[in-house]
Structures are given as C-alpha cells and as structure tokens.
C-alpha cells in the first residue's frame, strides 16, 4: 500500500494467512516492540534510580551561646491578645517561637492562658502579613515613608488636630513614646478605642468615687458573686485572671469545705452563666429591674442611709417569684458583707452607678473591689472616640494615626467614620495585616508582631512585665514606637528607649539590685518586676450624687418585644482575630458551632415564629439589617436575640473574609458609652436555610429512651461536705490480663467542678500537636480534628437551664477496644499505660475509631496542605505531621513525656511530680486537669484519684481508662444526686 492508513481492520493477514504486526506510522515501531522496550527500560531505570533525595543541613555560622540546636529555650513575655496583659513563656526552638504557655509566676494569669493567646503563634507566621510598608496601597521603602510622612506632618502639626487612635496600650514605655510624639504638637491627643468597651465601669466610678478607672475585682476574696450579665469567665475585662481566682475560690481538691457561690442573672446563655451555681433567666426589662429591686432591698436593709425614693424603683415586669428570688439573693449578700461581689456587664453608666451603690452598701470596696489600686486594663474611652468622629467629619483633624484599631469595620457608625476619614489629609496605619481601615490609609507602616518586638506591660499597678522579642522580624516591619520616633527626629531604637525608661523610672523603685545591668538581666529572666509599693493612697470615698437621676432614667427605659444583645465570643473577640483559622474552627463553647455566627433565639421564640434551626432571618433595627441563620439556644430568654460580634469581615484575609455577618452596626452610642443592646428590633424570616457546622448536636445526657446517662456526676455542696458523695465503686473485674507497668503509669484527672468550658486546652493541644484545620464544610461533616473536645450538656428543670461541660481527651484505656481491632497493630499499649498511635504503621482501616466508645479518635480524611513555607514555621518539630489516611488521637503529649524522661535519666534522677505537664493541663486557667504518674504514690494525680468524687466515664464498658473525672459540686441546695 502506498497510502498510509491511520486505522485498519482488527486483524490483517498477509498472503500466508499470518497476522501482520501493526506498525505505527508515526514512530515506525510495532506495539509489541514498544511495550517490550518500555518494560526493559523501566526495569533498568527502576533498578538504578533509588537515590536519596538530597537534604541540606545548615548550621549557624556563629553559635548563639544560649541556644543549643534541638533544645527549646523559654523567654518570659506578655500576651498581646487583649488588654489583660497575661504573662507568658514563649517556647523558642532553633530560633522560632512555636508555643505560648502561661507564666506561673505572673500575677494576672498565674500560668493559665485563653484560646486567643495560643493562636498568636499562627498569627506570627501568617503568610498574609504585610511584608513591607505601603504608600497608597503600593509597596515602598521605609526611607520613602519617613520622608513623606515627615514632610506632610510638618504643616499638620500647627493649626490642626493630630489624633493618635489606638486600642488599650498597656506598655508604659510605649505610652511615654506616644506622649512624646503628641506633646510636640499644638493640639494632639491619644484616644483609646476598644470596640467592645467596658468604659461604663470607669465612668460610673468617676461619678461615685471620683476615680476614672476600672477597679480590680478580687474573686479570690469573695464568698459570693452576683453577676448581672457580666461574662467574666469568658470575655469581660480579664477572663484568665478572673477564671484563675474564681476556680481557686471554688477548689475542693485540697479538702476545702467552702465554695464561692456564683449567681448569674442574664438573658442570653453566656459561658459564665453556664457555670453559675444559680442562673436566673431574665428578659431585658427584668434584668434592669432586678438590679433596681436588689438595690431597693439593700438600701433599706443595708444599714446605710440612702435617700432613695422607693417609688423610683420600677419593678413592673418582675413576677412575685422573681422578687422572692431576688430577696433571697439580697439576704445572702447581706450575710457576706465585705466578702461579696456584685458586677454588671452592661455598658450603661447609670446601671453601673447602681451596682457601685450596691457594692458600697455591702462594704465591698476595699475588700473584694479595689478602687484604690485599680487595674490598668480596658482603657477604652467611648466619648472621646465619638468626639473624634465629629472632629473628623468637621474637617478639624489634619493627621490621624491608627494602631490596632479597625473602626471602619467595628465602630457603631462605620459610614460616618469612613466619611470622616476621607477628610483627614494624613492617615497613617500601623496594621500588620491590611484590614478594612488600613486599606483606606495613605501610609501603612506595619508594626512588628508581638513576638518580634520589645515592650513592657503594666496592667496591675506596680507590676511590670516584659514583652521580649523571640525572633528577628520576619519581614520588613518596624516597631510603631520607632516609626513615631523617626517622625519626631529621634533615631534611637525602641530597645534603647525601653532600657532608659526602666533605668530612670523603675530601677529606683527597688532595692534588691545595686547595678542596673543586674536588675535588667534578672527582670528579663523572671519576666516580672514588682515595684516597691509606695504609701497606700487615700481611700476613695463613695458619693451618691448622681444616683437619683440615674434611677429615674433607668426607670423610664422602654422595652419592646425583642431585645438584641450583641456579644463577643471567647474566640474571635471583636473580630481582630477573624483571620485565624484556629480560632474560627474552635467551636463556640456553648453552641458548639464553628466558622459562623448566627442569631440565637430561645426555643419558645423559635417555635412561636415557626422557625427551625438554620433558617435565615433578617434582623432589623430601623435602617440597619443583617441576615443570619438562627440557632436555638436553650436557657435564653424569650425576648432576647443574641448575635456574636467579630464576623462579616471583608478584608481580613483568606480565612476571615465572608464568614458570618457583621453585627457591629447594631452597636449604638448613647450618653458617653457604647451600647451593646438594642430594642425595637424585628425578626423577619426568609425562605433560605443554611447548614450550621456544629461539632455536637446532642444537647442533653438523656438517651433516646429517656434515661439519664451517668456522664456527669453532680453533688450539692451540702452533700459533698457531709460525705454523701462517697459511694461504693463496683469492684473491678476483668477477664483480661492486667498490664504490667514496671516504671511509670500515666494518668489524668479532670475536675469538672473547676472546668469552666473555656476551650483554652483545645487550642493549646492544637498548637502543640500540629493539628490541621479542616474548614467549615468538613466540620459540618463531623470531621473536625481537635484531639480534645469539650462536650456541653443541658439539663432543664422548669425555667432553669443548667449547663455542664466535660473535656474528653483520649482515655488511654487499659482494656482499649481500639487496640484489639487494628489489623496492622498500629495502636498498641505502651509499658507506661499509654495507648500509642503509630502513624507510620497505620493503613487507615478506621476500625479503631469505630470501636472507641468515647469517640476520641480523629482520621485524616485529606492531605491537609502544608505548602506555605512561612506558615510551616509554626509547626512543632517534635510531633510528626500526619498525612492522609492516618488515624490520630490524643497521646497525653507523649513528646513532652519522653522529653522530660530523657532529661531526668540524663541527670540520673527520678521525675518530680508536676514536671511533665501536658499541653492542655498547662494552659488551663482553672487548673482543672491534673496529670502525673500513678506509680508515684505521692503524686497529686494519685491523691485526686482517691477522692470520693472520682469517677470514670462509661464504667460498665470496662475499658479501665486512665482518665477519670471529679464530680461537679454545685453550691446550690436544689441539686440532687444523679439517678442511674
């Protein structure tokens, strides 16, 4: 054939009847030949190509003397997550900070940390951080920025107002730098703006005590706490500090017979309310009137002469039953004069004045409330911020400097602010990531991350801590203090300024060290310096000058059918951490929902409006509207609609954009303070539905047949003190061989009485163990990866809803049902009692997860990406990063156990009790987790296991877990023993 055919019949035969091999016209080779060649060459290549992929090992050029490669060093620093100023220890490994832990010696946090602190590591290595300064949105050099800013600042300094807008600056040295910058100008001011503000506490104290400050609340000195909607264990002022003191006052592990009593009056279900001994559900009207009624009773019976018109106390919405409850609360408060604490979360000065009066009648000032030694946290001044908006819109502001604020997103009137911003000729932002406000600035001068910067902090008067840099700045950022100094012609580094400040102001306040260098080095090492306190100042006296007006204003308040309450979540807070995937994925402790916000409605309201969970509704107030799915929240008052702040961001970054809806428009400004509740709102259902990503939908411990499963054991304080909780434990019988533990046996006890459900342990575990983030869709499929979870159960009796929290790590069962079903023995029992998970052996059968009765095993369904080299710096090098198809679970932080075992053996000594701290245990602000060696007879975990409160979960299944729980003790009379 002369013509080439590209196709032919199936089998062509030649003149002898033999099949003709096909020859490709392109390559000129038959199929068979091609395959033969392919086989030979691939075999040959395979035999020769098994080479090692070349890996580099690069030592430092000069060894830093304090660093040993592979050994972690710890630096004492301060957390920059909020204005509470908790002390931290930063774990630095080979020049990279990889974990934050609480500093046990720090008076604020005393070793505990909240979830936000742990997420700061991720924020340091966030690939979306700004790497260079920006001029008009384009990258520039610092030289250009300094030239242009200095040039434009000169005319702005005279004849115009210069404003420095920031969040609470807790660093005294930084404040001095800001002061210095401001003082060089004709009319300049530093305005502190906190989007979620507690400024009413300050303004009220200004009126009643003449002190414009937030007092110190001493929960450890109180025997009873009555909180009106103050979420002090969650987000109010200094939650870690309060949780620490609160849990110490309620600790029963050391044989105590008394407990701090906690009564909460609230409309929405907050974390604090969930922990209260008695939680009284109030509508918005009942909330105000309860405070007034309580004040009325105390004014009458308190023994102090108050000229209060009894008619001024409005109680028209209080039922007789409610009045009786309040009367009994008043009685309890009166029997604990000087050791009680009444606090209120409202940001209304009038309400706070009444609360101050209540505390004064009870004699709490000077005992549980320290107004003479106030705290330096929470410095927001709402009135000045409102004034700033007016000034900007009037064109009076010539230069605006913005640090750690985002008013275009989170202020009560962001359109006004944005409009005013346009009229300011010079706008400088110090944001480290571009946000809604920073993108409108002329100059963005990215500040260092707190791990890269020097600084100090003073939140308790007289106690100074450091903020130490633990890594050289990753990008071309610059400390904002240095930026301010450059623009004032000062070329020093901020480190120099810090040292000078300490030398001149703090070094003289002590007598221990004679030389400044000694003082400096030792203070840096400890992280804390407590100045010799001077003579105690005069006690501020209470005056009730504005009280009558306050009462009459409060009495005139109108309420509508629905009342909106906007609140901060313990994770995203005011939205500044919206781009942290760790915080977005951490399920809300109460609603167990991640990656979303929603409008919480009570079950009654939802059924009245015929709405099912997930239905999208439009919440409207006047011209402001927001569309959100609803979530049915037990225990919430029927008139209350609660929406979390911090969502609906548009310029947060990959993780934070378009998550949820922005509720900040519902914040209002009235009478010098921001208001976080609103009346006259309407709920309009739409036809849409949204699937909420929840990690737990079971709401109670009742099983389908209606029996109460013995998951949470609970006793009243009376029963506990009288020994009624000592019940006989069934004798442990087993057909299995007992394991032999020659050396150690690790065990854990979780005190349900101490656990507040804050979820700090969950984030600590995520940071320590390289746990991936899976995203909303996967969380919705119940595939979240958190090794430790905190279950939340409701118990409803009449009008009361009780909430119970239970952390569940891997139980490390002795008779583990997961061990016996692994076909490849990837999970076996160690000689120290741990149920080991060997990642490289696991083939992904998932039978072990199926068999686990506690459901604590997590499977890697996907190859969770670790592509970004900057983000990978946050990984813990001691823990394997698991690939797709591998099962993982809590390991009792075996890497920490092994590390300490090796150190102890190298030093030829036994391991001390408390030397090994699992990540969850270390982070808990409430000291709820105790971990240790059960073979050590004196260890605290052993002592706790012998407690009568100790019980094991699902005991009948005979798994013999190493983790047991201490039953919850409630300081309340109406708690019966659990019925099985």
């Amino acid at each position, binding site marked *: 054939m002369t013509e080439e055919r590209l196709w032919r019949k199936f089998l062509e035969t030649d003149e002898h009847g033999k099949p003709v091999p096909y020859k490709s016209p392109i390559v000129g080779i038959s199929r068979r030949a091609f395959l033969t060649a392919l086989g030979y060459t691939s*075999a040959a290549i395979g035999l*020769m190509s098994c080479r*090692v992929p070349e*890996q580099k090992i690069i030592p430092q050029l000069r060894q830093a003397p304090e660093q040993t490669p592979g050994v972690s060093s710890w630096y004492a620093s301060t957390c920059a997550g909020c204005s509470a100023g908790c002390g931290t220890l930063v774990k630095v490994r080979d020049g990279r900070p990889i974990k934050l832990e609480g500093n046990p010696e720090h008076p604020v946090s005393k070793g505990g940390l909240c979830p936000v602190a742990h997420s700061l590591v991720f924020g340091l290595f966030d690939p979306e951080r700004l790497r260079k300064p920006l001029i008009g949105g384009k990258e520039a050099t610092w030289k250009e920025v300094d030239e242009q800013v200095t040039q434009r600042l000169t005319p702005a300094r005279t004849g115009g107002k210069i404003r420095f807008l920031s969040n609470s600056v807790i660093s005294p040295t930084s404040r001095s730098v800001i002061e210095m910058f401001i003082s060089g100008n004709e009319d300049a001011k530093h305005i502190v703006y906190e989007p979620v503000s507690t400024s009413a506490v300050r303004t009220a104290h200004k009126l009643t005590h003449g002190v414009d400050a937030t007092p110190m609340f001493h929960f450890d000195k109180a025997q009873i706490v009555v909180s009106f909607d103050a979420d002090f264990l969650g987000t109010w002022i200094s939650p870690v500090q309060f949780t620490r003191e609160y849990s110490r006052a309620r600790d029963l592990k050391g044989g105590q017979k008394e407990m701090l009593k906690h009564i909460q009056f609230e409309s929405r279900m907050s974390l604090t309310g969930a922990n209260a001994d008695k939680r009284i559900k109030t509508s918005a009207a009942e909330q105000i009137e309860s405070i007034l009624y309580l004040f009325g009773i105390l004014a009458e019976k308190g023994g102090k002469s108050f000229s209060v018109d009894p008619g001024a106390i409005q109680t028209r919405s209080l039922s007789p039953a409610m009045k009786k409850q309040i009367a009994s609360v008043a009685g309890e408060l009166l029997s604990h004069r000087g050791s009680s604490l009444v606090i209120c979360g409202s940001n209304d000065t009038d309400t706070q004045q009444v609360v101050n009066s209540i505390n004064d009648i009870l004699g709490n000032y000077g005992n549980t409330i320290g107004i003479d030694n106030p705290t330096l946290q929470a410095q927001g001044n709402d009135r000045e911020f409102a004034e700033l908006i007016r000034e900007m819109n009037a064109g009076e502001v010539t230069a605006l400097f913005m640090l750690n604020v985002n008013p275009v997103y989170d202020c009560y009137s962001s359109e006004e602010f944005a409009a005013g911003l346009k009229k300011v000729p010079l706008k400088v932002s110090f944001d480290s990531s571009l946000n809604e406000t920073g993108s409108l600035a002329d100059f963005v001068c990215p500040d260092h991350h707190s791990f890269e910067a020097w600084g100090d902090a003073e939140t308790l008067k007289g106690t100074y801590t450091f903020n130490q840099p633990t890594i050289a700045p990753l990008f071309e950022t610059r400390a904002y203090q240095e930026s301010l100094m450059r623009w004032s012609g000062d070329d020093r580094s901020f480190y120099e300024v810090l040292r000078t400040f300490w030398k001149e102001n703090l070094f003289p306040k002590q007598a221990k060290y004679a030389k400044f260098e000694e003082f400096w080095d030792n203070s840096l090492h400890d992280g804390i310096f407590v100045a010799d306190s001077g003579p105690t100042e005069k006690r501020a006296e209470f005056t009730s000058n504005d009280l009558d007006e306050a009462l009459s204003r409060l009495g005139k308040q109108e309420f509508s059918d629905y009342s909106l309450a906007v609140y901060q979540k313990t994770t995203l807070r005011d939205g500044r951490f919206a781009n942290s995937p760790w915080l977005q994925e951490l399920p809300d402790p109460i609603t167990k929902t991640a990656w979303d916000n929603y409008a919480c409605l009570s079950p009654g309201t939802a059924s009245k409006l015929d709405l099912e969970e997930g239905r999208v509704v439009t919440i409207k107030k006047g011209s402001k509207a927001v569309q959100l799915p609803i979530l049915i929240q037990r225990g919430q008052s029927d008139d209350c609609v609660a929406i979390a702040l911090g969502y609906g961001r548009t310029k947060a970054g990959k993780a934070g954009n378009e998550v949820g809806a922005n509720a900040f428009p519902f914040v209002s400004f009235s009478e010098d303070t921001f208001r976080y509740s609103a009346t006259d709102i309407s709920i309009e259902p739409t036809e849409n539905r949204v699937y909420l990503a929840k990690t737990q939908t079971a709401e109670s411990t009742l099983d389908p047949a209606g029996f109460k499963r013995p998951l949470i054991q609970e006793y009243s304080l009376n029963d506990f003190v009288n020994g009624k909780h000592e019940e006989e434990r069934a004798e442990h019988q087993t057909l299995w061989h007992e394991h032999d533990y020659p050396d150690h046996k690790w065990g854990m006890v979780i005190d349900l009485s101490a656990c507040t459900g804050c979820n700090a342990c969950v984030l600590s575990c995520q940071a320590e163990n390289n746990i991936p983030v899976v995203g909303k869709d996967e969380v919705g499929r119940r595939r979240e990866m958190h090794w430790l979870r905190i279950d939340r159960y409701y118990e409803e009796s009449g009008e009361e809803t009780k909430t119970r929290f239970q952390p569940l790590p891997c139980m490390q069962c002795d008779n583990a049902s997961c061990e016996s079903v692994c076909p490849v023995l990837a999970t076996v029992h160690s000689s120290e009692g741990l149920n*080991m998970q*060997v990642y*490289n052996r696991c083939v992904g059968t998932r039978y072990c997860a199926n068999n686990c009765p506690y459901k604590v095993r997590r499977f890697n369904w996907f190859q969770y990406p670790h592509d970004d080299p900057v983000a990978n710096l946050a990984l813990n090098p001691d823990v*394997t990063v698991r690939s797709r198809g591998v099962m993982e679970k809590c390991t009792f932080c075996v890497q920490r156990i092994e590390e300490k075992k090796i150190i102890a053996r190298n030093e030829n000594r036994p391991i001390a009790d408390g030397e090994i701290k699992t990540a969850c245990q270390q982070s808990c602000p409430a000291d709820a987790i105790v971990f240790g060696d059960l073979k050590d007879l004196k260890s605290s975990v052993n002592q706790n296991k012998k407690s009568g409160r100790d019980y094991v979960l699902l005991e009948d299944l005979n798994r013999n877990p190493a983790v047991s729980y201490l039953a919850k003790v409630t300081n309340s009379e109406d708690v019966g023993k659990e019925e099985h």
Partner: protein
Amino acid sequence: MSLRTIKIISILVTITGAIAIWQNGTFRQYGDQSGYQPIQPINFSHKVHAGDNKINCLYCHSAADKSRVAGIPTAETCMNCHTKIKPDSPEILKVAAALEKNEPIQWVKVNDVPDHVVFNHSRHVVAGLSCNTCHGPVETMEKISQFSSFSMGSCVSCHRTHREVILGADGRPQISAEKSEKKLMASTDCSVCHH
C-alpha cells in the same frame, strides 16, 4: 529504531544497573541508605581530624550529649583552630569566606532517619554508647558516608538486648547484655520513637 536496537540498548542498560547493585553489596531494603556518600561543599576529612589528630567527636558535635540532634559544627568552631592552622588551604578558605560573607555553609545531610522517627542523641550518648556503634569508623573516613542502615531493626535489636546500664571500672556507664532486676532503660514502646 528497530526492535533489535531497542532490545540491545535496554539489555545493556539492565546489565549496567545490575553491576551497580552488585557493587553496592546486596539488594537493598527499601530506605536503606548505608554507604551514601554525597559530595559535600567543603572537602572535610574526618580521618585527618578525628583519626590523625584524635579530636573528640563532642568537640565539634557539641550538642550530642545535650540535645536530640548532634549538631554540625558552626563555621566559628572550625576557625577556632584554623585561623592559625593551615589558614591558606583552599578548603579552609571556603570556611573563612562563609564567615566573611555571612553565608552559612550548606552541608549535605548524610546520616538521617525518616521524618516519622524521633531519635534523641543525648540519651544514647549519656547512656555510654560510643559514637562508632551507629556511625561506624568515622575516624577512618576521608569522606563521610552513612555506615549503618538505620533501619528500625538495627535500633530495636539493640533496645531489646541492651537493657541495663552498669558502671564500668572507670565509673562511666558500660553497655551490658545481661538482664537483671534493674529497671528497663531502653524502651521498646513504639511511641518512644514514633510520636
């Protein structure tokens, strides 16, 4: 190309490959990299330093008794001696140049275990194991190569037999194969190395 040509070429290639395997000793287990001897940026000879001059391993690899990694010496450590000793040798000039230009030396990693294995040097060094046990006769190596296969079996066989630490005549720990009532020292739990 005809089929015959292809067959000849592929047979030759296969023979070459077989010779390569034969030269390396035996068929390897997957992951067995013993004998790996990559080209290093600087021609450092362990024979000269550890062999002829008898410098202690821990002088340069100073982290070995303190940390999980032994550590490659910093350029500064080299210059401790080499500012005076043979400063003009071309290889040593490379070290000095690295220090001047502030560019760390990028050595090629020779002794390595997979990422899912955690190995702690300090425990083994303090327990008395000599460096040669796992790293072979390094003091005879002109160019460093991997001696042991670092297979799991090579680690576990030692952990199973050498379980107890007895002090020798010099007061330093000696490895003994005898079992006694003393506590287990070398654990065979999986999670000791795989976590």
